[in-house]
């Protein structure tokens, strides 16, 4: 685990450093900007899907779905980050407590 932590940390640090030391023309291209703006959207959305429905390589529907739905509603009502996460965890935890969904 430590190599992953350290390599990934070094890599993300170098990404930050890159913008200060590289010639500007390299990163200033519109296509690069556009892609860099969209990447987080794609990856975060994919992470939402996978972290909700994946159990290893199986697709499952369990109490996590309820948590996600609650998070969605909380966000629509502009709840702050921590509240969103806590409400999601609470609703999933409660659902399991009462034995709804696995």
């Amino acid at each position, binding site marked *: 685990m430590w190599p992953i932590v350290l390599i990934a940390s070094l*890599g993300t640090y170098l990404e930050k450093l890159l913008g200060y030391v590289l010639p500007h023309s390299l990163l200033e291209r519109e296509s690069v900007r556009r892609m860099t703006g*969209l990447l987080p959207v794609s990856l975060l959305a994919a992470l939402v899907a996978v972290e909700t429905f994946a159990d290893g*390589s199986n697709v499952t529907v369990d109490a996590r779905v309820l948590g996600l739905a609650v*998070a969605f509603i909380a966000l629509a009502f502009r709840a702050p980050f*921590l509240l969103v996460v806590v409400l999601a*965890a609470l609703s999933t935890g409660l659902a399991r407590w009462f034995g709804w969904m696995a």
Partner: protein
Amino acid sequence: MDSQSDDDSHSNMDSSHAHLPHPHLPHPHVPGEHLAHTNRDIHVNALGIGLATGAYGLSFGAISIASGLSIAQTQALSLFMFTGASQFALVGVIGAGGGAFVAIATALLLGARNSLYALSLSPRLNLRRSAVPAAALLTIDESTGMTIRYSANVQDRRRAFFATGLSVYVLWNIGTALGALGASNLSDPGMFGLDAAIPAGFLALLWPRLTSNSRTENQKMWTVAIVSALVAFLLIPVLKPGLPVLCSALVAVAASLIWGRSHTSGHLDRMDQ
């Protein structure tokens, strides 16, 4: 960190790339007596943003432990990686059973936007060489957003950047430590729904990117998000854990190729005001 403290909408890059000029922008040409006011304003905002992200650091610490990292590893990520979305993604992929390469690649792809932040900050901060390594570490959504907001002069920009960066750095790390310590005392994190906190956290990170731009831009973001989620979902049974997320990056690549030509102004242009 990349937390979107919605109560303070300028606190992140995504809102700044969306709406400038901000209604609370300081008057650019007010000299003298207003300087102290501006400084206090910067410090108060920096502290507020730090507190919000610190609270978010709690959830990162807890989720990282639930994903199987040690307390030291969790803290190392907040100290050295210091970019929330990548940290969350790394522990998320590891927790889901993804391999080392996939975990690192996902974190790096999510961190790529920091290069662009650094690029736009570099001329604005105009730093000494010796200050660049520290500035690089503090280059995140929040510090970039604040720097762009206080754009009146280079002193304000530097103050906004370092005040916000340091405030978030300290409080994010304290939050991480408390969250990690708390979660390591739980016997079964799943029982408390901590595993559901992970997708909720990602959704909360994603949300402002879907909602804080113009209507047409938001629609594009929603499209990219839904298609990406669908692609990843369909690939779950086909690929090894972690890879479906990486593959979704291709959706972003495709979308940027399709929309790139018709789109004339990138968000960094709008930041230049």
